[in-house]
Protein backbone atom coordinates (compact mmCIF):
# COMPACT_ATOMS: atom_id res chain seq x y z
CA UNK A 1 0.00 0.00 0.00
CA UNK A 2 1.55 3.24 -1.17
CA UNK A 3 1.12 6.26 1.04
CA UNK A 4 -0.32 9.13 -0.95
CA UNK A 5 1.32 11.72 1.30
CA UNK A 6 4.77 13.15 0.75
CA UNK A 7 6.57 14.38 3.83
CA UNK A 8 8.50 17.54 3.17
CA UNK A 9 12.09 17.48 4.38
CA UNK A 10 12.47 19.50 7.52
CA UNK A 11 15.12 21.87 6.30
CA UNK A 12 12.84 22.98 3.54
CA UNK A 13 9.73 23.27 5.61
CA UNK A 14 10.58 26.85 6.39
CA UNK A 15 11.18 27.83 2.80
CA UNK A 16 7.93 29.71 2.57
CA UNK A 17 6.48 32.09 5.05
CA UNK A 18 3.46 33.15 3.12
CA UNK A 19 1.40 32.62 0.08
CA UNK A 20 1.02 35.09 -2.75
CA UNK A 21 -0.90 34.93 -5.94
CA UNK A 22 -1.63 37.40 -8.71
CA UNK A 23 -4.80 36.58 -10.59
CA UNK A 24 -5.62 39.56 -12.75
CA UNK A 25 -4.07 42.85 -13.79
CA UNK A 26 -6.31 45.91 -13.84
CA UNK A 27 -6.82 45.51 -17.61
CA UNK A 28 -7.59 41.79 -17.29
CA UNK A 29 -10.08 42.42 -14.47
CA UNK A 30 -11.77 45.07 -16.60
CA UNK A 31 -12.17 42.72 -19.55
CA UNK A 32 -13.46 39.92 -17.29
CA UNK A 33 -16.06 42.10 -15.57
CA UNK A 34 -17.00 44.35 -18.50
CA UNK A 35 -16.04 42.32 -21.61
CA UNK A 36 -17.70 44.71 -24.03
CA UNK A 37 -17.43 47.87 -21.99
CA UNK A 38 -15.45 50.98 -22.71
CA UNK A 39 -13.98 52.27 -19.48
CA UNK A 40 -12.73 55.74 -18.65
CA UNK A 41 -10.71 56.56 -15.58
CA UNK A 42 -12.59 58.84 -13.19
CA UNK A 43 -10.12 60.26 -10.71
CA UNK A 44 -11.90 60.68 -7.40
CA UNK A 45 -10.46 61.93 -4.16
CA UNK A 46 -12.63 61.71 -1.07
CA UNK A 47 -12.91 64.79 1.09
CA UNK A 48 -12.64 64.26 4.81
CA UNK A 49 -16.39 64.89 5.08
CA UNK A 50 -17.10 62.18 2.49
CA UNK A 51 -14.66 59.85 4.15
CA UNK A 52 -16.36 60.25 7.53
CA UNK A 53 -19.81 59.90 5.98
CA UNK A 54 -18.82 56.63 4.26
CA UNK A 55 -17.28 55.25 7.44
CA UNK A 56 -20.35 56.19 9.43
CA UNK A 57 -22.88 54.79 6.95
CA UNK A 58 -20.97 51.54 6.30
CA UNK A 59 -19.52 51.01 9.74
CA UNK A 60 -16.18 50.28 8.08
CA UNK A 61 -13.00 52.30 8.31
CA UNK A 62 -11.98 54.18 5.16
CA UNK A 63 -8.22 53.90 4.69
CA UNK A 64 -7.77 55.33 1.23
CA UNK A 65 -9.07 58.63 -0.07
CA UNK A 66 -7.77 58.27 -3.65
CA UNK A 67 -10.24 55.95 -5.33
CA UNK A 68 -9.34 53.83 -8.32
CA UNK A 69 -12.58 54.21 -10.25
CA UNK A 70 -13.47 53.78 -13.92
CA UNK A 71 -16.76 54.90 -15.45
CA UNK A 72 -18.31 52.46 -17.91
CA UNK A 73 -19.72 54.07 -21.03
CA UNK A 74 -23.46 53.54 -21.08
CA UNK A 75 -23.64 53.26 -17.28
CA UNK A 76 -21.83 51.40 -14.53
CA UNK A 77 -18.60 51.54 -12.56
CA UNK A 78 -15.43 49.51 -12.21
CA UNK A 79 -13.58 49.96 -8.91
CA UNK A 80 -10.26 48.56 -7.71
CA UNK A 81 -9.95 48.36 -3.95
CA UNK A 82 -7.71 46.87 -1.26
CA UNK A 83 -8.44 45.21 2.05
CA UNK A 84 -6.07 44.40 4.83
CA UNK A 85 -6.53 41.58 7.31
CA UNK A 86 -4.29 40.46 10.14
CA UNK A 87 -2.24 38.27 7.80
CA UNK A 88 -3.62 39.00 4.36
CA UNK A 89 -3.56 41.80 1.86
CA UNK A 90 -6.07 41.53 -0.97
CA UNK A 91 -6.58 43.70 -4.04
CA UNK A 92 -9.88 43.12 -5.77
CA UNK A 93 -12.12 44.61 -8.42
CA UNK A 94 -15.83 45.25 -8.28
CA UNK A 95 -18.25 45.88 -11.13
CA UNK A 96 -21.35 47.96 -10.40
CA UNK A 97 -24.35 48.72 -12.56
CA UNK A 98 -25.43 52.36 -12.94
CA UNK A 99 -27.87 51.72 -10.09
CA UNK A 100 -25.14 50.40 -7.83
CA UNK A 101 -25.83 46.67 -8.05
CA UNK A 102 -22.76 44.43 -7.82
CA UNK A 103 -22.24 42.46 -11.03
CA UNK A 104 -18.96 40.77 -10.07
CA UNK A 105 -16.20 40.68 -7.47
CA UNK A 106 -12.85 39.40 -8.77
CA UNK A 107 -9.74 38.99 -6.68
CA UNK A 108 -6.75 40.52 -8.46
CA UNK A 109 -3.96 40.01 -5.98
CA UNK A 110 -3.76 37.98 -2.80
CA UNK A 111 -0.89 37.81 -0.38
CA UNK A 112 -0.53 36.35 3.08
CA UNK A 113 2.35 37.01 5.37
CA UNK A 114 3.42 35.69 8.72
CA UNK A 115 6.38 35.84 10.96
CA UNK A 116 9.00 33.56 9.48
CA UNK A 117 9.46 31.44 12.57
CA UNK A 118 8.08 27.92 12.57
CA UNK A 119 6.20 27.27 15.73
CA UNK A 120 6.08 23.89 17.41
CA UNK A 121 9.76 23.04 17.33
CA UNK A 122 9.28 19.86 19.33
CA UNK A 123 6.65 18.68 16.98
CA UNK A 124 8.85 19.32 13.97
CA UNK A 125 11.66 17.32 15.49
CA UNK A 126 9.80 14.09 14.95
CA UNK A 127 10.25 14.39 11.19
CA UNK A 128 14.00 14.04 11.40
CA UNK A 129 15.00 10.83 9.69
CA UNK A 130 11.61 10.23 8.13
CA UNK A 131 11.48 9.02 4.56
CA UNK A 132 11.26 11.67 1.95
CA UNK A 133 9.49 10.27 -1.07
CA UNK A 134 9.82 13.33 -3.28
CA UNK A 135 11.83 16.19 -1.88
CA UNK A 136 10.58 19.65 -2.62
CA UNK A 137 12.90 22.01 -4.38
CA UNK A 138 13.51 25.29 -2.67
CA UNK A 139 12.58 27.28 -5.72
CA UNK A 140 9.38 25.40 -6.39
CA UNK A 141 6.34 27.58 -6.38
CA UNK A 142 3.58 26.66 -4.01
CA UNK A 143 0.58 26.65 -6.28
CA UNK A 144 -2.05 24.71 -4.41
CA UNK A 145 -2.60 24.92 -0.69
CA UNK A 146 -4.97 22.88 1.38
CA UNK A 147 -6.00 24.10 4.76
CA UNK A 148 -6.18 27.71 3.64
CA UNK A 149 -9.16 28.64 5.71
CA UNK A 150 -8.78 32.41 5.68
CA UNK A 151 -12.19 33.99 5.56
CA UNK A 152 -13.34 36.42 2.92
CA UNK A 153 -14.96 38.64 5.54
CA UNK A 154 -12.66 41.57 4.79
CA UNK A 155 -13.67 41.53 1.14
CA UNK A 156 -17.34 41.43 2.13
CA UNK A 157 -16.74 44.48 4.33
CA UNK A 158 -14.82 46.19 1.52
CA UNK A 159 -17.68 45.68 -0.94
CA UNK A 160 -20.09 47.07 1.63
CA UNK A 161 -17.92 50.17 1.97
CA UNK A 162 -17.77 50.57 -1.84
CA UNK A 163 -21.55 50.33 -2.13
CA UNK A 164 -21.89 53.18 0.36
CA UNK A 165 -19.19 55.06 -1.55
CA UNK A 166 -21.22 54.61 -4.72
CA UNK A 167 -24.34 55.86 -2.99
CA UNK A 168 -22.74 58.95 -1.48
CA UNK A 169 -20.07 59.87 -4.03
CA UNK A 170 -20.45 58.17 -7.42
CA UNK A 171 -24.22 58.23 -7.89
CA UNK A 172 -24.47 62.04 -7.49
CA UNK A 173 -21.93 62.55 -10.30
CA UNK A 174 -23.29 59.93 -12.72
Amino acid at each position, binding site marked *: *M*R*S*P*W*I*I*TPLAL*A*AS*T*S*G*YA*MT*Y*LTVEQAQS*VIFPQGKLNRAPIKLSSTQRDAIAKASGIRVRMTDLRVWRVEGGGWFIVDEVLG*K*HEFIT*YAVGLTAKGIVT*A*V*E*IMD*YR*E*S*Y*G*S*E*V*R*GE*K*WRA*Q*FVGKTVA*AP*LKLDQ*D*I*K*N*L*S*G*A*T*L*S*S*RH*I*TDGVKRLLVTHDLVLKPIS
Partner: protein
Amino acid sequence: MTSCSSQSPELVRARPLLGTVVEIRVCARSLASGTAAINHAFAAVARVHALMSPHDPASDVSRINRATAASVICVDPWTFAVLATSQDLATRTNGVFDISTRPSAGRNTASPRESWGQLDLLPRNRVRCSLPLKIDLGGIAKGFAVDRAVAALQRAGIVSGVVNAGGDLRVFGPRAERIHLRHPFSPGHCLIAAELVDEALATSANYFDPARQGRLVRPDGRRLWLQRGSVSVMAPNAMLADALCKVVAAIGIRRAAPVLREHHASALVLGRGQPDRIEQLADAA
Protein backbone atom coordinates in the same frame (compact mmCIF):
# COMPACT_ATOMS: atom_id res chain seq x y z
CA MET B 1 3.14 19.73 -14.05
CA THR B 2 3.17 23.43 -13.34
CA SER B 3 2.33 24.87 -16.74
CA CYS B 4 -0.25 23.77 -19.24
CA SER B 5 1.33 24.05 -22.67
CA SER B 6 1.99 26.66 -25.29
CA GLN B 7 -1.25 25.75 -27.05
CA SER B 8 -3.33 25.87 -23.89
CA PRO B 9 -2.63 28.82 -21.62
CA GLU B 10 -3.16 28.51 -17.87
CA LEU B 11 -5.84 30.76 -16.42
CA VAL B 12 -6.26 31.36 -12.69
CA ARG B 13 -9.06 33.35 -11.14
CA ALA B 14 -10.43 33.81 -7.64
CA ARG B 15 -13.65 35.13 -6.18
CA PRO B 16 -14.90 35.52 -2.64
CA LEU B 17 -17.64 32.90 -2.28
CA LEU B 18 -18.87 30.48 0.40
CA GLY B 19 -17.26 32.68 3.04
CA THR B 20 -13.82 31.95 1.64
CA VAL B 21 -11.68 32.55 -1.44
CA VAL B 22 -12.56 30.16 -4.27
CA GLU B 23 -9.72 29.71 -6.75
CA ILE B 24 -10.10 28.12 -10.18
CA ARG B 25 -7.09 27.14 -12.26
CA VAL B 26 -7.54 25.65 -15.73
CA CYS B 27 -5.73 24.83 -18.93
CA ALA B 28 -7.82 26.40 -21.67
CA ARG B 29 -7.69 26.24 -25.43
CA SER B 30 -8.08 29.99 -25.60
CA LEU B 31 -8.40 32.94 -23.26
CA ALA B 32 -12.01 33.50 -24.29
CA SER B 33 -13.14 29.88 -23.85
CA GLY B 34 -11.28 29.58 -20.55
CA THR B 35 -12.78 32.79 -19.19
CA ALA B 36 -16.28 31.70 -20.17
CA ALA B 37 -15.78 28.26 -18.57
CA ILE B 38 -14.50 29.79 -15.33
CA ASN B 39 -17.50 32.15 -15.24
CA HIS B 40 -19.82 29.11 -15.50
CA ALA B 41 -17.93 27.39 -12.69
CA PHE B 42 -18.17 30.43 -10.39
CA ALA B 43 -21.88 30.63 -11.20
CA ALA B 44 -22.27 27.00 -10.04
CA VAL B 45 -20.50 27.80 -6.75
CA ALA B 46 -22.68 30.87 -6.27
CA ARG B 47 -25.74 28.71 -6.87
CA VAL B 48 -24.68 26.26 -4.16
CA HIS B 49 -24.15 29.24 -1.87
CA ALA B 50 -27.66 30.56 -2.61
CA LEU B 51 -29.27 27.16 -2.05
CA MET B 52 -27.42 26.12 1.09
CA SER B 53 -26.47 29.23 3.04
CA PRO B 54 -28.16 29.20 6.45
CA HIS B 55 -27.96 33.02 6.48
CA ASP B 56 -30.03 33.54 3.36
CA PRO B 57 -33.73 33.34 4.28
CA ALA B 58 -34.60 32.19 0.74
CA SER B 59 -32.17 29.24 0.73
CA ASP B 60 -33.39 25.62 0.83
CA VAL B 61 -31.60 25.22 4.16
CA SER B 62 -33.47 28.18 5.68
CA ARG B 63 -36.75 26.84 4.33
CA ILE B 64 -36.13 23.48 6.00
CA ASN B 65 -35.12 25.24 9.22
CA ARG B 66 -38.37 27.20 9.25
CA ALA B 67 -40.55 24.20 8.45
CA THR B 68 -43.13 23.04 10.92
CA ALA B 69 -43.35 19.42 12.00
CA ALA B 70 -44.37 16.92 9.32
CA SER B 71 -44.55 19.49 6.52
CA VAL B 72 -43.13 18.44 3.16
CA ILE B 73 -40.68 20.76 1.41
CA CYS B 74 -39.55 20.53 -2.19
CA VAL B 75 -35.86 21.38 -2.58
CA ASP B 76 -33.49 21.84 -5.50
CA PRO B 77 -31.98 18.57 -6.84
CA TRP B 78 -28.54 19.85 -5.76
CA THR B 79 -29.71 20.36 -2.18
CA PHE B 80 -31.37 16.97 -2.27
CA ALA B 81 -28.12 15.34 -3.43
CA VAL B 82 -26.22 16.87 -0.50
CA LEU B 83 -28.93 15.83 1.96
CA ALA B 84 -28.88 12.28 0.56
CA THR B 85 -25.10 11.96 0.98
CA SER B 86 -25.33 13.51 4.46
CA GLN B 87 -27.98 11.06 5.59
CA ASP B 88 -26.06 8.14 4.11
CA LEU B 89 -22.93 9.21 6.01
CA ALA B 90 -24.97 9.69 9.17
CA THR B 91 -26.20 6.12 8.86
CA ARG B 92 -22.76 4.70 8.13
CA THR B 93 -21.14 6.61 11.00
CA ASN B 94 -23.98 6.04 13.44
CA GLY B 95 -24.68 9.76 13.65
CA VAL B 96 -21.12 11.04 13.94
CA PHE B 97 -21.67 12.93 10.71
CA ASP B 98 -24.79 14.89 11.52
CA ILE B 99 -26.14 17.92 9.68
CA SER B 100 -28.86 18.55 12.21
CA THR B 101 -28.99 20.31 15.51
CA ARG B 102 -31.95 20.70 17.80
CA PRO B 103 -31.02 23.61 20.03
CA SER B 104 -34.41 23.59 21.75
CA ALA B 105 -34.10 19.99 22.88
CA GLY B 106 -32.25 19.44 26.13
CA ARG B 107 -29.21 17.20 26.29
CA ASN B 108 -31.28 14.55 28.02
CA THR B 109 -34.27 14.54 25.74
CA ALA B 110 -32.73 13.85 22.36
CA SER B 111 -29.87 11.60 21.49
CA PRO B 112 -27.88 12.69 18.45
CA ARG B 113 -29.19 9.78 16.48
CA GLU B 114 -32.74 10.91 17.05
CA SER B 115 -31.91 14.30 15.60
CA TRP B 116 -30.77 13.42 12.08
CA GLY B 117 -33.29 10.61 11.96
CA GLN B 118 -36.08 13.20 11.95
CA LEU B 119 -35.27 14.24 8.39
CA ASP B 120 -36.91 11.96 5.81
CA LEU B 121 -35.95 12.08 2.17
CA LEU B 122 -38.93 11.48 -0.13
CA PRO B 123 -39.12 10.88 -3.88
CA ARG B 124 -38.99 13.82 -6.30
CA ASN B 125 -36.57 15.96 -4.27
CA ARG B 126 -38.89 16.39 -1.32
CA VAL B 127 -37.98 16.25 2.36
CA ARG B 128 -40.01 15.99 5.50
CA CYS B 129 -38.99 16.75 9.08
CA SER B 130 -41.01 14.75 11.55
CA LEU B 131 -39.97 17.27 14.20
CA PRO B 132 -38.78 20.84 13.68
CA LEU B 133 -35.02 20.83 13.41
CA LYS B 134 -32.15 22.99 12.27
CA ILE B 135 -29.73 21.76 9.66
CA ASP B 136 -26.38 23.18 8.67
CA LEU B 137 -24.58 21.92 5.57
CA GLY B 138 -21.35 23.71 6.50
CA GLY B 139 -19.50 20.39 6.75
CA ILE B 140 -20.27 19.23 3.23
CA ALA B 141 -21.65 22.00 0.97
CA LYS B 142 -18.26 23.57 0.22
CA GLY B 143 -17.00 20.25 -1.13
CA PHE B 144 -20.17 19.80 -3.16
CA ALA B 145 -19.72 23.31 -4.61
CA VAL B 146 -16.20 22.36 -5.72
CA ASP B 147 -17.60 19.25 -7.45
CA ARG B 148 -20.24 21.34 -9.24
CA ALA B 149 -17.60 23.83 -10.36
CA VAL B 150 -15.51 20.98 -11.78
CA ALA B 151 -18.58 19.60 -13.59
CA ALA B 152 -19.28 23.05 -15.07
CA LEU B 153 -15.68 23.36 -16.29
CA GLN B 154 -15.77 19.90 -17.86
CA ARG B 155 -19.08 20.66 -19.56
CA ALA B 156 -17.48 23.78 -21.01
CA GLY B 157 -14.75 21.64 -22.54
CA ILE B 158 -11.97 22.14 -19.98
CA VAL B 159 -9.86 18.99 -19.75
CA SER B 160 -7.78 19.67 -16.68
CA GLY B 161 -7.64 22.04 -13.76
CA VAL B 162 -7.99 22.63 -10.02
CA VAL B 163 -10.83 24.14 -8.00
CA ASN B 164 -9.88 25.18 -4.47
CA ALA B 165 -12.46 26.57 -2.04
CA GLY B 166 -10.37 27.64 0.92
CA GLY B 167 -8.60 24.30 1.25
CA ASP B 168 -11.35 22.01 -0.06
CA LEU B 169 -10.03 21.23 -3.47
CA ARG B 170 -10.36 18.91 -6.42
CA VAL B 171 -7.96 18.16 -9.23
CA PHE B 172 -9.39 16.92 -12.53
CA GLY B 173 -7.93 15.75 -15.81
CA PRO B 174 -4.86 13.68 -16.63
CA ARG B 175 -2.28 16.00 -15.06
CA ALA B 176 -0.93 15.43 -11.56
CA GLU B 177 -1.05 18.45 -9.27
CA ARG B 178 1.03 18.84 -6.16
CA ILE B 179 -0.93 20.11 -3.21
CA HIS B 180 0.74 21.46 -0.09
CA LEU B 181 -0.69 21.26 3.39
CA ARG B 182 -0.22 24.06 5.81
CA HIS B 183 1.79 23.49 8.93
CA PRO B 184 -0.96 23.21 11.54
CA PHE B 185 0.79 25.50 14.00
CA SER B 186 2.50 27.80 11.54
CA PRO B 187 0.11 28.66 8.72
CA GLY B 188 2.74 30.45 6.66
CA HIS B 189 4.59 27.20 6.21
CA CYS B 190 3.95 24.00 4.37
CA LEU B 191 4.97 20.62 5.60
CA ILE B 192 3.31 17.84 3.69
CA ALA B 193 2.56 17.55 0.02
CA ALA B 194 0.38 15.19 -1.93
CA GLU B 195 0.21 14.44 -5.63
CA LEU B 196 -3.35 14.34 -6.85
CA VAL B 197 -4.68 13.02 -10.15
CA ASP B 198 -8.42 13.23 -10.61
CA GLU B 199 -9.25 13.30 -6.91
CA ALA B 200 -10.11 15.63 -4.08
CA LEU B 201 -8.51 16.75 -0.84
CA ALA B 202 -9.99 18.56 2.13
CA THR B 203 -8.31 19.87 5.26
CA SER B 204 -9.97 20.90 8.50
CA ALA B 205 -8.17 22.75 11.23
CA ASN B 206 -8.15 25.87 13.24
CA TYR B 207 -5.00 27.54 12.06
CA PHE B 208 -5.75 31.17 12.34
CA ASP B 209 -7.13 31.45 15.81
CA PRO B 210 -5.22 29.12 18.11
CA ALA B 211 -7.03 30.49 21.14
CA ARG B 212 -10.32 29.28 19.82
CA GLN B 213 -10.29 25.52 19.46
CA GLY B 214 -13.73 25.22 18.01
CA ARG B 215 -13.91 26.02 14.36
CA LEU B 216 -14.94 22.39 14.25
CA VAL B 217 -17.69 21.43 16.62
CA ARG B 218 -19.70 18.31 17.03
CA PRO B 219 -23.42 18.95 16.75
CA ASP B 220 -24.10 16.72 19.72
CA GLY B 221 -21.80 18.87 21.84
CA ARG B 222 -19.37 16.00 22.43
CA ARG B 223 -15.67 16.59 22.57
CA LEU B 224 -13.81 16.38 19.27
CA TRP B 225 -11.17 13.73 18.91
CA LEU B 226 -9.01 16.38 17.22
CA GLN B 227 -8.17 18.98 19.83
CA ARG B 228 -5.37 20.63 17.92
CA GLY B 229 -3.62 20.18 14.59
CA SER B 230 -5.26 19.36 11.30
CA VAL B 231 -7.03 16.57 9.46
CA SER B 232 -6.75 16.05 5.71
CA VAL B 233 -8.75 13.57 3.67
CA MET B 234 -8.22 12.50 0.07
CA ALA B 235 -11.29 11.09 -1.66
CA PRO B 236 -12.67 10.58 -5.16
CA ASN B 237 -14.74 13.77 -4.95
CA ALA B 238 -14.67 16.96 -2.90
CA MET B 239 -18.03 16.47 -1.19
CA LEU B 240 -16.84 13.18 0.32
CA ALA B 241 -13.42 14.59 1.21
CA ASP B 242 -15.07 17.55 2.99
CA ALA B 243 -17.55 15.42 4.94
CA LEU B 244 -15.12 12.61 5.81
CA CYS B 245 -12.69 15.21 7.13
CA LYS B 246 -15.30 16.13 9.74
CA VAL B 247 -15.79 12.47 10.63
CA VAL B 248 -12.06 11.94 11.21
CA ALA B 249 -11.86 15.14 13.29
CA ALA B 250 -14.75 13.89 15.40
CA ILE B 251 -13.69 10.29 16.06
CA GLY B 252 -10.12 9.86 14.81
CA ILE B 253 -8.52 7.90 12.00
CA ARG B 254 -8.80 4.48 13.55
CA ARG B 255 -12.48 4.63 14.28
CA ALA B 256 -13.16 6.33 10.95
CA ALA B 257 -11.15 3.73 9.01
CA PRO B 258 -14.16 1.61 7.90
CA VAL B 259 -16.08 4.56 6.45
CA LEU B 260 -12.91 5.95 4.86
CA ARG B 261 -12.25 2.60 3.17
CA GLU B 262 -15.84 2.33 1.99
CA HIS B 263 -15.34 5.59 0.12
CA HIS B 264 -11.79 4.87 -1.13
CA ALA B 265 -10.51 7.72 0.99
CA SER B 266 -7.24 8.20 2.86
CA ALA B 267 -6.57 10.46 5.80
CA LEU B 268 -3.68 12.29 7.42
CA VAL B 269 -3.67 13.84 10.87
CA LEU B 270 -1.00 16.34 11.84
CA GLY B 271 -0.14 17.17 15.38
CA ARG B 272 -2.86 15.92 17.64
CA GLY B 273 -2.45 16.10 21.38
CA GLN B 274 0.77 15.60 23.34
CA PRO B 275 3.14 14.42 22.04
CA ASP B 276 2.20 15.73 18.63
CA ARG B 277 2.33 13.20 15.91
CA ILE B 278 1.41 12.26 12.40
CA GLU B 279 -1.07 9.50 11.79
CA GLN B 280 -2.10 8.29 8.43
CA LEU B 281 -4.35 5.82 6.77
CA ALA B 282 -3.81 4.98 3.13
CA ASP B 283 -6.60 3.84 0.88
CA ALA B 284 -6.56 0.05 0.76
CA ALA B 285 -7.89 -0.02 -2.79
